[in-house]
């Protein structure tokens, strides 16, 4: 039980830190054309490393935070992030932790999913069909930034996860 609380606390802290980085810090860097979607990186990383349940929960709360500050309806982002966390959780068993290709691929697919979702529900239903232009101007830059950030972000989350796992094993031994 103690570990669950600890893990929840760490994840909450990560959500907050990544959100602040995404909205405040990266926004201030002049040569970047946008901010990498760090909450997405967090969602898919937790999904990959910890499975469907935790991926889903992390995704939901990441999305909810975005909803709260975006000023639109609630649960719009929460829904898609929850699914991304869940779908990546399915891949947990395939994953070898040190392999980097799979997380990158997963990040790419997740990001595309997320952008497509925003396009379809924000623009396509308003009959705005300049898809190619949108893809070049909005999807591509964010895709590149996010995949780059995912390299570092995934590594950091991997390290934190391993540290937590070591602590949990130590605790389990003591208990036994």
């Amino acid at each position, binding site marked *: 039980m103690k570990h669950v609380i600890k893990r929840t606390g760490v994840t909450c802290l990560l959500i907050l830190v990544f959100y602040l980085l995404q909205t405040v810090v990266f926004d201030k860097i002049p040569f970047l054309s946008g901010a990498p979607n760090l909450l997405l990186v967090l969602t898919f990383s937790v999904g990959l490393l910890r499975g469907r349940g935790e991926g*889903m929960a992390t995704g939901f709360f990441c999305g909810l935070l975005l909803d709260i*500050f975006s000023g639109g309806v609630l649960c719009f982002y929460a829904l898609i992030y929850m699914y991304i966390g869940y779908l990546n959780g399915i891949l947990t068993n395939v994953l070898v932790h040190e392999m980097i290709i799979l997380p990158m691929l997963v990040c790419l697919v997740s990001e595309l999913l997320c952008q497509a979702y925003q396009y379809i529900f924000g*623009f396509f239903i308003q009959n705005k069909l300049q898809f190619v232009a949108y893809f070049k101007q909005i999807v591509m830059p964010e895709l590149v930034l996010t995949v780059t950030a995912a390299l570092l972000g995934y590594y950091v989350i991997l390290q934190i996860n391993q540290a937590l796992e070591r602590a949990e094993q130590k605790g389990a031994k003591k208990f036994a």
Partner: protein
Amino acid sequence: MGEKLRALILMIKPKTVLFVMTFVCIGVIGVTYFHSDTAVPLRTAVGYIVVPLQSGVNNIGGLGQAFLQKQMDLQDARDTIAEQEQEIEALKSQIEQYQEENAEVKQLRKLFELSQTYQEYGTVGATVVASDTSKWFSRFTIDKGSDDGLEEGMNVIADGGLVGILTQVSGNFSVVTSIIDNSSNISAMSRERNALCVVSGDLELMQEGRIRMSYADVDSGIREDSIIVTSNISDLYLPGILIGYAKDVTVDANQLTLSGYIEPKVDFSSLKDVLVILTTKQNGEVSK
């Protein structure tokens, strides 16, 4: 006790949770779409935790930036002081001239009853603390909310130009949707001849910081660099606020209307401080 709870939690399959949560999410989307007020308590509560953090991070970044800037500025300042002393002399004589002209303007304004310009509305200053996370929208968060007397629909200005409108207000933060956002549609007019036109944001132009102008009458006299301000008939925006300058104006295929682009007065890529006008269009009309 802990073990029992653990066993209970393990029994619930993620698939079931996903299924249930999907319906919950769709339900919440539906409810908040039709009644946006229901989300306010949650937004306010989370705002009290996150917005101070955002302000803090902003300030820390600002301090570092300020320190570097200070060193660089010091040298510049010494050089400019010498230049400016000469300028001051020249300006002093100009001031006298302007004072005379100003008196004349005041007299003329009185004559035309044009004193109701937006400079006379009450404003409150706010700092931009965060931008929208997605590039699909042009929205940002400011650090003032209903605690400071803000309401939805209030107009936001900066550098003497229109920035946008408050689309969501919570306890200590508000979301501003800028005029370059795809959803923005403003009834505008040219300052010289009060000719109406529509100014709308466009996602493709958003990156360049420009907006589209359309439906202006072919005889409206709008041309390159015409000054475009908000119109008297807009429901949302107070009249006479500067939007920007017309560019690349062309006659439409129907030979009846003009369209083109507007270069906003405000530089949206480097917004830091904004002013919120405390009068909304509706209230303003009533109190007059």
